[in-house]
C-alpha cells in the first residue's frame, strides 16, 4: 500500500484526498503556492511544501517543482486530483521515469485518450457508438449530400480549421443542406482561408450523461452507474445527479456495457469517466473519456456507498477491485450543487475576497466538500469553486427537497456566490420534473438571470 502520498492539487479536492489518507493511515504531503499558505489543505496535511508563487503556471502546473517536493518529502505516490496536471501525459510519464506512483492511468493511456482522433478510432474499433461523421474532408456539395444521407439528419457542417462557431451550419433536411453547406464553406473560406469541411450528425438538445468506471491492473472493469450533468453554463457543470431521470434500467445496462467496453479498449486502469451525449431518441454517443477523478464523484459515492478516492489509492497500490459489477447497487438519489465565488448578475464574474461569515448546512444525507472556513481569503488565481453541496435522498423528489432546504441554510458573507442562482434552478418546474437537457440554462431565466443577456 502507498505509504506517503503527495497531493499535487489545492482546494476542496486536496482536502478530500488528505481526508482519505488520514482514514487509511497514509501520510499526506500537501504542496501549496504562496497564495495558499493559509489554505485548509496546507494546514490539514501531515506535511506541506511551498512550490512557488500564486499563478498556477509557477506552482500547481510546474511539474519540476512538484517532483522536487515529492523527492524531498520522500513520498512514494502522487495524486493529481482534477484540473492542473491530472490529465497531463507528460507529468504521468515523469512520475513513471522517477519510479513514483501516479494515482491514475499510465501516461500512454492519458496521451491516447487526450487525442480526439485516436480516442474516436479506439472507440469505433471497440464498437462503442461515436457521433457519425465523415472520415474524409469534404469540398463539394454533392459529396457532402451523399455523406449527409449516410450520416442521417440533422447534420452539422464544420470547417476543418474551424473554431468559435465560424464556418458552422446545421441542416435538418436534405433540402436545407445545400444552402447550409455553401454558407458554412463561404464563411470558412473567409475566416480561415480554407474551405475544407467535415459533416457530423447533429446531436440536438442532448443530455450529458457520464458513466463512472473503475478498473484495476488485472483487467477487471466495473461501472458505478451514471451521472446526469446536463445543467451547464458554457460547458461548466453546475448541478450533477445520479441516477439520471432520463436513463431507464435497460438503457443503463446498455450504456454501462458500452462504458466498460470503452475502458477496456483503452486499456484503462484506475477511476475514469466515459462521457456520452444522450439523444431524446435514446441513442447515445461517446464524447470523451476523462482520465481523472471528477468534481462530481460524490454523487456516485452517495448512491453506491463506495469511496472513490480510496478505491483510486488501492488500485494505484496494485490491489485488485474489491467489488464486482454484480455487487454494485445504485440506491437512492443524489444531487450535487457547485457553490462558486461568482456573481450571476454580473455575468458570473469571479468574486475573490475574504469570507466574513460562514454557515454551512449539515444533517442526515447532507454532505459538504469544501476547503473554506470562516475568515478564509479566496485567492484570485484559481477556479472559483468554493464548495460542493451533496444531498442524498430515497427519491429524486426527496433529494430536491433536501437540496432546497440545505441551500437555504448556506450563508457565505464577504464575497458573492451563486447560491441564489442554484436555488432558482432547484425551484424551476422543468428541473423538478426532470425535463431538461444541456441547453437548460440557455433556455430558462433563472433567479432573474438570463445567461445569454450580455
Amino acid at each position, binding site marked *: *500500500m502507498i505509504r506517503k502520498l503527495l497531493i499535487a492539487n489545492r482546494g476542496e479536492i486536496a482536502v478530500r484526498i488528505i481526508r482519505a489518507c488520514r482514514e487509511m493511515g497514509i501520510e499526506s504531503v500537501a504542496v501549496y503556492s504562496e497564495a495558499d499558505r*493559509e489554505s485548509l489543505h496546507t*494546514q490539514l496535511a501531515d506535511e506541506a511544501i511551498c512550490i512557488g508563487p500564486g499563478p498556477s503556471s509557477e506552482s500547481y502546473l510546474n511539474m519540476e*517543482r512538484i517532483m522536487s517536493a515529492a523527492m524531498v518529502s520522500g513520498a512514494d505516490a502522487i495524486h493529481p486530483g482534477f484540473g492542473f496536471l491530472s490529465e497531463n501525459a507528460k507529468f504521468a510519464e515523469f512520475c513513471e521515469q*522517477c*519510479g513514483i506512483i501516479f494515482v491514475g492511468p499510465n501516461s500512454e493511456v492519458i496521451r491516447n485518450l487526450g487525442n480526439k482522433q485516436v480516442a474516436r478510432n479506439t472507440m469505433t474499433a471497440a464498437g462503442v457508438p461515436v457521433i457519425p461523421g465523415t472520415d474524409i474532408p469534404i469540398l463539394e456539395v454533392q459529396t457532402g449530400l451523399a455523406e449527409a444521407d449516410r450520416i442521417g439528419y440533422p447534420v452539422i457542417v464544420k470547417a476543418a480549421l474551424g473554431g468559435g462557431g465560424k464556418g458552422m451550419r446545421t441542416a435538418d433536411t436534405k433540402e436545407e443542406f445545400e444552402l447550409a453547406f455553401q454558407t458554412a464553406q463561404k464563411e470558412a473560406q473567409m475566416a480561415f482561408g480554407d474551405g475544407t469541411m467535415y459533416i457530423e450528425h447533429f446531436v440536438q438538445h442532448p443530455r450529458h450523461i457520464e458513466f463512472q468506471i473503475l478498473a484495476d491492473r488485472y483487467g477487471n472493469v466495473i461501472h458505478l452507474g451514471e451521472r446526469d450533468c446536463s445543467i451547464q453554463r458554457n460547458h461548466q457543470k453546475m448541478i450533477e445527479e445520479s441516477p439520471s431521470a432520463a436513463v431507464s434500467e435497460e438503457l443503463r445496462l446498455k450504456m454501462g456495457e458500452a462504458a466498460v467496453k470503452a475502458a477496456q479498449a483503452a486499456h484503462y486502469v484506475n477511476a475514469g469517466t466515459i462521457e456520452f451525449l444522450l439523444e431524446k431518441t435514446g441513442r447515445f454517443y461517446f464524447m470523451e473519456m476523462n482520465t481523472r477523478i471528477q468534481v462530481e464523484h460524490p454523487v456516485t459515492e452517495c448512491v453506491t456507498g463506495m469511496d472513490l478516492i480510496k478505491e483510486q489509492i488501492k488500485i494505484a497500490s496494485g490491489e485488485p477491485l474489491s467489488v464486482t459489477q454484480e455487487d454494485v447497487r445504485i440506491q437512492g438519489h443524489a444531487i450535487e450543487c457547485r457553490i462558486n465565488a461568482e456573481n450571476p448578475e454580473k455575468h458570473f464574474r469571479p468574486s475573490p475576497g475574504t469570507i466574513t461569515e460562514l454557515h454551512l448546512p449539515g444533517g442526515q444525507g447532507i454532505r459538504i466538500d469544501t476547503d473554506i472556513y470562516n475568515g478564509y481569503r479566496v485567492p484570485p488565481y484559481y477556479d472559483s469553486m468554493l464548495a460542493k453541496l451533496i444531498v442524498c435522498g430515497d427519491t429524486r423528489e426527496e433529494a430536491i427537497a433536501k437540496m432546497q432546504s440545505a441551500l437555504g441554510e448556506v450563508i457565505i458573507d464577504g464575497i458573492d456566490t451563486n447560491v441564489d442562482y442554484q436555488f432558482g434552478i432547484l425551484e424551476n418546474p422543468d428541473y423538478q420534473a426532470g425535463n431538461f437537457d444541456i441547453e437548460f440554462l440557455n433556455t430558462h431565466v433563472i433567479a432573474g438571470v438570463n445567461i445569454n443577456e450580455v
Partner: protein
Amino acid sequence: MKFKHMFKRTAVKAGSVNSAGNLFAARQPEVPDGLLKKCNSCKSAVFVEEVKKNYYICPHCRNYFRVHAYRRIEMVADADSFEEWNQGLKTENPLHFKGYEEKLEGLREKTKLDEAVITGKVTIGGTPAVIGVCDGRFLMASMGEVVGEKITRAVERATEEKLPVILFVCSGGARMQEGIVSLMQMAKTSAALKRHSDAGQLYISVLTNPTTGGVTASFAMLGDIILAEPNALIGFAGPRVIEQTIGQKLPQGFQRSEFLLEHGFIDEIVERENLKEELGRILKMHAVDGAVKGKSRIPEKADEETSQYISEEKPGQILSEQCLKNDTEQSVKNDGEQSQSGKTETKGMNQIGPKMSAWEHVQLAREKNRPTGKDYVNLLFTDFVEMHGDRYFRDDPAVIGGIAMFCGQPVTVLVQEKGHGTKANIEHNFGMVSPDGYRKSLRLMKQAEKFGRPVICFVDTPGAFCGLEAEERGQGEAIARNLYELSGLKVPVLSVVIGEGGSGGALAFAVADEVWMMEHSIYSILSPEGFASILWKDSKRAKEAAEVMKLTAGDLKELGIIEQIIREEEPLNRENLPEVFEDLSRKIQHFLEHYETMDETALVKHRYDRFRRM
C-alpha cells in the same frame, strides 16, 4: 487566516511499507540522472529533453543555455550538409606549460572535441558557407594557436573558394597557457579576415554568451554583419575585472547584447529559433550579388544610350532635361500619359489639381499622417534585414538602414525616419539625424559598395540634429564625410525626398546619381522658419520665406537640382501610399537598369559632373 490549533494527526499505519501487494516498496522514487537540469538564470529544474527540443532555451525564463558546437551546426545548417575541416590539429604547447597537455587530453576525452573550435563547410537554406563554431566546454573556448589556426585556415579557404564565412563566437578570450602565442592569434585571424574582405567576400559573426577578451578584440567584431543572441555577455574586459578595477558596481544589462546594439556595435539581435532563417536570408542576398556586380562592372557593357548620354553632357547644362527626356520616353512607352518636353511636363505637373502655394507644400510635407521612410521600405521592398549601429558609439534611431530585395536583386536601403505618433516621433528624434546616424549610413553605403549593391535613400528630415551631444561627436565632420564618400561611391545611388529635405542633414543622404522628389515634399537650405529668422530676424515670417526659397519639387526641378517629380494623385498618407507603388517602382527599375550598366569610372564621373555643374 491560520488556525490557532493544529489539526490532530491520525495514526500512520505501521508496517504498511512492507505489506503484501505493494508493488513498489522495493524502490525508493528518484529522479533519474540526465532527466532534469537546472537553469542557472531562474534556478528552476527543467526537462533536458524539452530544452533540447526548444533550441536549448529555458521553458520558464527563456534563458539561453550554451550549445555544443556540433549541436549548433545541426541547428543552423541544412541536414547532413556539414563537412568538417582540419580535424585533429594539436597544440605544440609553445610555452611548455606544465600540466597543459594532460589537461587538454582530459578535455578531449570528456568533450570528444579536438579543440575549442569546429570548422568546415555547410549549406544554410541551400547557400554554401564556411562555418566555425566555438565550444565553451573546451577551456571556455579560449583562443590558443589551434583555435587561431583553424579559423585562419577556414577563412583562407573560404577566400579562395569565394565562400562567405560565418563564425559562431563564444570565448573567454586568449588562452593563458599559450601566452604570447595566443595573443598573436588575434592578429593572425584578423589579417585573414582582412584579406577575405578585400576579396569582396562576406563575413558574418554571431556573438553568443559569452564573447570576451582577445576574441572580442579580433574576429568577433570584424563581421560585415554582426549578429548576437539575446542577453549574451559581450565585452573586452570581463565585468568582474572592470568592477574590481574601478571599484564600482556595474549597471544592470551592461555589456549585454542589447547594450551593444544600443551602442552601435552589433547589427541585429536574433532569437535562437530564427537564426537559421536569418542567416539563410542574408547569405542568399549576398549570393546573388556576384551576378549583379559582374553585370555592372563590365565597362564594355555600358550601352550606347548611356555613353551618348554622358558624352552629351556639358558643364552648366541642366541634367534634368536629359534625364527627363529619358523618362518621358519611357513614360510614353509605358502609358503614353506624357509626351511633351521636360519643362512643359514640370509645369503641367504643378498645374494638376489646385495650384498650391509653397507654404501649402511645406505643410503637406510635414503632415502627421504623411508616409515615413519605413512605409516606403515596406511598400517597395521585400526581405528587409535591418542593420543597426555605427560601430563607434550608438545606433541612431533617426536612420533606418539595411539590405532588402527589389525586383529580385539586393539593394541597400537607407531612410531618415520620423515615426508615426508622438511616442515614435520621440523615439526616432523626429527624423533629426545625429552624427551616429550619418556614420551608420556611411558604414552601410561602404558595405553596399563592397558587395556591389545599389544604394537607395529616402530623405525626410527637418535637418540634422542640433544639440550638445551632436556637436561633441562631430556633427559637421559626419555630414562632410558622407558628402565626401558618397561622391566617390562606386555603386549607383538614388535619393528620393519624401517629406522634408532639410539642409545638410538631407544632403548627406542625397549626393546621388539622381535625386527625385515626391510631389508634395520640400528640399531646402534650411527650414522656412530658420530662413526667416536668419534673414529677417523673425521666424513668424516662415510662410513668406517659403514662397521665396524655391523649395517645392516644381521649383527645384526647374532649377535643375532634381531629376524627377513623383506625382501624388492625392497628397500622400499612409493609406493611399500604395497608389504610387507602380510608378515609383517602375521608375526605380529604370534607374537601376540604366546606372547599373555604367562602369565604375563613368558612374563616379557622372555623379561628380552632376554636382560640378551646380
